[in-house]
Structure formats: C-alpha cells, structure tokens
C-alpha cells in the first residue's frame, strides 16, 4: 500500500503551549481523510503543518517528521514553494484575491512559470469546470472575484488551489461558511477529487465526515485518540471518548 503523507512523532508547540502531542498517522494516496474533534483540539494546526503554513506563526516550534512521498518536509533542504505547490490548501473562509476571477485562477500557474495565454486560458476553464463554477462565471471572468457569492468564492478558491496541479489538497472546514446547497456541491466535488488527489479535510460536521471520508482521525486536546476507517469510527469506535464525541455527548 502506498502512503502519500506519513506523519511521525509530530510534536508542535506555540511558545510554551503543547498543541500537538506525538501525532502518528499514515494517509493513503487517493483517499479522503477527515480530521474531527472539538474546537481547539489541534485539527487546523495539524493540517497546516502538512504544507508548513505554521512557519508563518512566530515562535511555533515543531519536532518530528512529516513525509510526503517519502521525503521529510521538515528537512532543511525542502523547497517550501514546491511543497506548497504539491500540497494545496483551501481555507475556512473563502479568501479570493482582490483581482479578477481569471487572475485569481491564473495567479498560481503564473507563479510556477506558465506565461502562455492560451495555456492559461485552458487552465482557468478546466479548473473552473472542475468545481462546477464555469457556467456561473464564464461571462464575467474579468470582473472582481470579490463580487461573487460566498459559496462561489469558496469554489473559486478550490479551483485556484487545483490550478497549480497539487497532489494533496488540505481543506480546513471548507463548508462552514456556506449554505446547504453549496455545501452539497463541495461535498460532491471532494468525492470526485479523490480520483486524482489525496484529500485531507477538517470538519465539525459529523455527517459530512461520515459521508465523504474513507478514514477519520479523532483529535482531542492535541492527541489523536483514534484513527481508523470512517465506517469503523462511526459504527464501532474502540475508544469510549470517540463514541461520546460522535454521539454528541460533548464537543
């Protein structure tokens, strides 16, 4: 079996605060993994350490390894720009750039040296189609991306992440700011994405985790309490705390 992401003995500190404690999980290629757990337990922190966005946080210390395709991304030789191209990220709140819809999508490819207008046009159309946004915005590609709805903005941000052809997609509660219809669209999308990508998604929505993920990791105050197939976690959890959480007894 091939593992795309392999987190080994990961410990993370924000100053003195021990935010992640001995995290060990292996994530299969072309699967959807859900991170669940109560607020403040370290899901976003763990997600952000996979593309090293935690580097932006001053006095954040990290020990341990994360292997992507068997290379430790915390090795000093790591090229961060390439790492983040390989592991794209979608944030909790849609954050389109204050540019046109077209330029939002083309921004990533342009960074990675694609200049040809025809190729860029193709990438923009392909990325927008894959998030089912093309038909909604094709007539206003040159209008500001800030002028479309929140759900459209979030799909735009997913398209923007796809445009740089990542292999891993990290999503931090991508639907928490969206209406039910947009949520369903994004959930469907995640299922499609799994064919080509490895998806890791943080969610507070148990049904969502159960619907779309293959494996689930349950976080509790910086630890992973249980990591297993989603059906096992939801039907037959090993740990009492997992059971309490998914049945809504706390969290």
């Amino acid at each position, binding site marked *: 079996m091939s593992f795309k992401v392999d987190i080994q003995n990961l410990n993370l500190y924000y100053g003195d605060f021990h935010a992640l404690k001995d995290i060990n999980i292996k994530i299969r290629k072309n699967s959807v993994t859900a991170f669940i757990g109560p607020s403040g337990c370290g899901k976003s922190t763990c997600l952000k350490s996979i593309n090293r966005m935690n580097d*932006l946080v001053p006095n954040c210390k990290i020990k341990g390894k994360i292997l992507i395709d068997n290379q430790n991304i915390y090795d000093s030789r790591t090229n961060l720009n390439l*790492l983040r191209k390989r592991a794209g990220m979608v944030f909790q709140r849609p*954050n389109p750039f204050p*540019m046109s819809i077209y330029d939002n999508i083309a921004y990533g490819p342009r960074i990675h040296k694609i200049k040809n207008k025809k190729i860029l046009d193709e990438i923009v159309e392909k990325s927008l189609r894959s998030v089912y946004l093309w038909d909604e915005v094709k007539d206003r590609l040159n209008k500001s991306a800030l002028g479309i709805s929140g759900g459209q903005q979030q799909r735009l941000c997913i398209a923007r*992440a796809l445009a*740089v052809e990542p292999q891993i997609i990290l999503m931090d509660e991508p639907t928490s700011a969206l209406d039910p219809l947009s949520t369903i669209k994004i959930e469907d999308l995640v299922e499609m994405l799994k064919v080509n990508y490895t998806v890791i998604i943080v969610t507070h929505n148990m049904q969502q985790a159960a619907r779309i993920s293959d494996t689930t990791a349950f976080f509790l105050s910086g630890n992973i309490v249980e990591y297993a197939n989603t059906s096992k976690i939801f039907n037959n959890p090993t740990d009492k705390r997992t059971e309490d959480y998914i049945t809504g007894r706390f969290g």
Partner: protein
Amino acid sequence: MKNNKSLYNKKKSISDMLLKFLIYLSTTITISIFLSIIIYILYNGIPYLSLKFISTAYSEIDSSLKGILPMLINTMYIVIITLLFAVPIGIASAIYLTQYAKQGKLVKSIRFTTEILSGIPSVIFGLFGYTIFCVILGLGTSILSGCLTMMLCVLPTIIRTSEEALLSVPKSYKEGAIALGAGKLRVVLEIIVPSAISGIITSIILAIGRIVGESAALLYTSGMAYNMPKGMFSHIFSSGRTLTLHLYQTAKQANTPDSFSQAFATATILLILVFILNVIASTISKIVKKY
C-alpha cells in the same frame, strides 16, 4: 403573559435628537468655513487671473512684470523632485518595516520616532536642512537643498500612512498566496502592495499637500529668487521661491489694492494646483486599483 401593546410606539429620544443636531451643526460649520475661504479667495483672485499672469516673469523692481511663471515652475520642480526621492524611500521603508523586519523593540521604536518626526514644526527641518545641505554639503541655497529638506519633512508622513495601509491588508490574502507556493517577494509586490495601493497613494497626496503648502522649511533652503530658469537641469542648483513663499512675500509687501489682488491671484493658482494634483493622484489610484 400577554402583552399586546401596539408596536407602533417608537419614542424619540431627546439625547438622540440633540446628538443629531450637534452633528449637523458641526458639519455645517466646517463646510461653511471651508466654502467661505475658497469663495473669498476665488472672488478676489479670479478677476486678476489671466494667461499672461501664469506665463510671464516677475520682478520686484520692474512693476510691469507681475507674472508668476518662475514660481509655478519652481513649485513643480520641488514637488516632483521631492517625490522622486521621498516616495521610493518612504514606500520601501514601509514595506520593510511591515513585511520583513522582525516585529520587536527596534521596529516599535522606529515607529515611535517617525510619529514624533511627523509632528515636528517644519522650521526645525528648515534649520537642519540649511545646516546640512546648504552649508555642510555645499549645495547652497538651491532647489535641490529645498527638495532634500522637504524629503525629510514628508518621509515620516509617507512611511506612517503607507505602513497603516500595508498593515490593514487582510492576512488571508497573504496566506492564500503563500499556500499556492508564491515566494515572499511575489506576495509582497503582487498581492500586498496592490491591495494597499489606495492608502499608499493617499500618503503621496498628503505629501504633495505638505510640499505645496510649505514655507518655513523652504525659506531657509531654496530661498526667494524669482528669476526665470536658465536651464532645465542647472535650475536645480539655483535658488527659487515657490508659490507659497511668493504669496507670503507679495502679501507682506502689498500696499496697494492691486498688489493685494496679485496675492489673491497667486492663492487661486495654488488652490487650482493642489486640486489638479489631487485629481491626478486619485485618478492614478482608481486606475491601479480596479477591484
């Protein structure tokens, strides 16, 4: 418990009304002061305006020469050259301080210092500029000395205002770009600076206003000469009075109604100049910031 009193029972609160009244009152006062100054100046200045006035030379001896062309040229020289120095330095400093420098004690004390500097009376800058540029560096009383002095005057304003603009760019833009694999320089130049551009241009507008309106700092450094420029480049090294200093001088020496009108006409030109420079700056801001 039942309580079906009518909902149409909105009460007017006295304090709300009083507050509203005060707001209207202060707005009216501000606007009317502003308008009366403008109208007063235009009323007295416009009759004296002519193409000849802005296109001919001036002389304190020959009373047939009453134009302001040299002053207009000097003012444009000083505005443009000062901005040429101050804008790149100021914006680069603001970018460095907000995006690159480690946010610690040093940056805090630099911020504190710029804040104090922007409040220092410009005479002091004038005295300093005179000593350093005119005397020690040997530039003499010249437009260049004036520009360097004005650069010191406006730098704190440009740095502070641009810094605020840069700091108010949402962090999520930066994160979004970094998560796509963009390098630091790209993020700064392509995402952060464009998002802050209108604030940065505001800082330039403020600087222009300060330069055009300056008198004390330039009196010492660029001087009071009113001769026509002889060469485009060599003019930088000669003394030249700006419109504001000219206004000061003509108003001070005015003893006839005619010479007063001349001062008002100069003031009118100053107002028009400031207006045009503002329009140019805000047009640029609109062109650059499309979204």
